[in-house]
């Protein structure tokens, strides 16, 4: 089986889906000749031509609005937003249309499109190349929100997203685009939307996380195991909405302790939803408080980003708080 990084796995997913289904088109800024600024769409224009791999003018509003129109007509557009930080110009189209067309038309129309975009921090990208805005999308009824953490999942989840009849926001943690490599099957497969992945088994405490924070959580898990003998279970949520509540509950039945780790800011962030759901419905499973380790409630800083993002020390502090309650 070939070893791939996430960029290569995503590229293969697009290539296979475009070959399999002539309705799949790719559009966005610099996705053609340039192959995307991170090269996720490299070579697609040579294989599928300018009618299916479309370099657009510089307008996120235009890209998403036009992709919605394409999806209404029957195509399966995969629209790239160069950095998710630039998506806000398209917010009206996303919130008022992409998310609501099925409901507004009583199910008569749907928008089977994917908005894929590099997200998150860790590359010294500053405040407009590092954001983790998944909560906005999770909060918007009608959207599915996905974030892979491995090349295998990236390929399988992107293919499942392209085949979904509902619109998908597909967020790609760019700091691990090339750093994580693994064997990825050269054949067609999908990873189901809405299903979490058990990354590490443990008995004492559950970390629910996603994206690049999976790796920070694993480091912290190793550290506390060595230092204190605590056994940490790590769950990669993969689909952020609809999230796999059953996987979290099943884990908590065993560990009875919950820590949520994400890069997005804390206040009204994605962790708040998960913590509230568990507290509302399964408080009896918990031995103590839920802890969140998150980006701080500030814009993403250019300096000291590793201190801003959840790091091994901050996850350790949260695990300690929950374990020693």
């Amino acid at each position: 089986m070939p070893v791939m990084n996430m960029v290569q796995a995503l590229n293969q997913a697009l290539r296979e889906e475009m070959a399999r289904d002539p309705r799949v088109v790719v559009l966005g800024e610099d996705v053609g000749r340039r192959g995307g600024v991170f090269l996720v769409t490299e070579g697609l224009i040579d294989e599928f031509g300018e009618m299916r791999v479309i370099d657009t003018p510089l307008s996120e509003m235009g890209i998403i609005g036009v992709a919605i129109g394409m999806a209404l007509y029957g195509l399966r557009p995969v629209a790239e937003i160069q950095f998710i930080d630039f998506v806000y110009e398209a917010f009206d189209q996303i919130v008022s249309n992409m998310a609501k067309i099925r409901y507004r038309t009583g199910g008569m129309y749907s928008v089977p499109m994917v908005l894929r975009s590099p997200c998150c921090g860790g590359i010294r990208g500053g405040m407009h190349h590092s954001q983790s805005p998944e909560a906005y999308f999770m909060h918007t009824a009608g959207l599915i929100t996905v974030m892979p953490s491995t090349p295998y999942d990236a390929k399988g989840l992107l293919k499942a997203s392209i085949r979904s009849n509902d619109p998908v926001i597909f967020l790609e943690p760019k700091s691990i685009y090339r750093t994580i490599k693994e064997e990825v099957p050269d054949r067609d497969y999908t990873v189901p939307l809405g299903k979490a992945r058990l990354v590490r088994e443990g008995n004492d405490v559950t970390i629910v996380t996603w994206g690049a924070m999976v790796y920070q959580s694993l480091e912290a898990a190793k550290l506390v195991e060595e230092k204190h003998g605590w056994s940490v279970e790590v769950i990669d949520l993969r689909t952020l909405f609809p999230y796999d509540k059953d996987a979290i509950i099943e884990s908590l039945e065993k560990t009875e302790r919950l820590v949520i780790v994400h890069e997005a800011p804390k206040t009204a962030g994605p962790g708040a939803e998960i913590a509230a759901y568990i507290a509302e419905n399964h408080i009896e499973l918990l031995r103590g408080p839920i802890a969140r380790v998150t980006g701080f409630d500030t814009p993403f800083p250019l300096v000291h980003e590793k201190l801003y993002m959840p790091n091994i020390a901050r996850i350790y502090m949260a695990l300690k708080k929950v374990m020693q309650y």
Partner: protein
Amino acid sequence: MEVLGSRDILNLDRALGLYRVIDEDGNPVAGEPSLPDKLLLDMYTYMIRARILDGWLLKLQRMGRVALHAPNKGQEASAVGATLALKREDWLFPSYRELGALLVRGMTEEEILDRALTTIDDPLKGSDFAIYGHRKYNIVPAPVPVANQIPHAVGAALAAKIMGDKIVTMTFFGDGSTSRGDFHAGLNFAGVFKAPVVFVNQNNQWAISVPLKRQTAAPTIAVKGIAYGVPGIRVDGNDVIAVYTVAREAVERARSGEGPTLIEAVTYRLGPHTTADDPTRYRGEEEVKEWERREPLRRMRRYLISRGLLTEEEDKALWSEWEKRIEETVVKVLEKPPLPPEVILEDVYEEPPWNLKEQMKELRESIRLLKELGIELE
């Protein structure tokens, strides 16, 4: 049916033509304006300073000391020429590729380098990369999402008008920006309210890999102003005298209450979009060579020498003087300490709410713990 408003606005000739004072080899074209010698030499000096500083920022990025740089090379004339038409009390809303404009407004190389290297003296305290500005120079630091600043320049101009100040605002943006909603909303508002604003489009032919013909089907960018009731003037953006002349007219027009102007400065980005870009993936060497021949410093130098305002020796001395001064500044700035970690939690609100106070404790505790564990994060 009568067309409302002034017919001058529909002057297509200026929006479709190309105003030029000196040709590509530095020879004056017809109608050379008479400008003071000192101003002509200042134009050239600012461009030299911008070119040298740009080279240093590129080098410092390669050394890992600057996070990212958007090279200016080839575009010095439009930034310098346009801002020289402003008065000190006027306001500037730049984008991220106008080092020359910052220098003209009075920002020093040291302030720019403090920013780029996020030293303890960084006036923007470690905020985003590739953006510059300072309240004391009436330069509002740009947002990195392109075109966002265009409506801001319109709003500030309108505010000045409402408050009765004879202030003009100027904003810079690229060809890619003209596809975004902010550009269209900004021009429309400016036209409707006759805001005293000058829009300077640096049409450098490429928005990363997307060429101008893929950005717009309009014959020029200047022509886009006309539909909003904003006169459009197309100018050779590598001819600093031409840019200055057109900008001065637009600034005077704005100050006298006649409203906004859209200037399209036709130029070329000789370098990559940013230090993270590789232009060989999308454009040919031939084209770049062609534009290198037209670059603004070479032709201004030729012009000044032919006018007897500069000798070869004086030119060499000018370059080496600024090379030395800027290198000394770089050495000085490289020695400065970095910003402390606490800055990342400051300036979110005027006074930090409770959550940020809690998070400050968390930050400090995590720094202590990292030390205790002997872990280096960066």
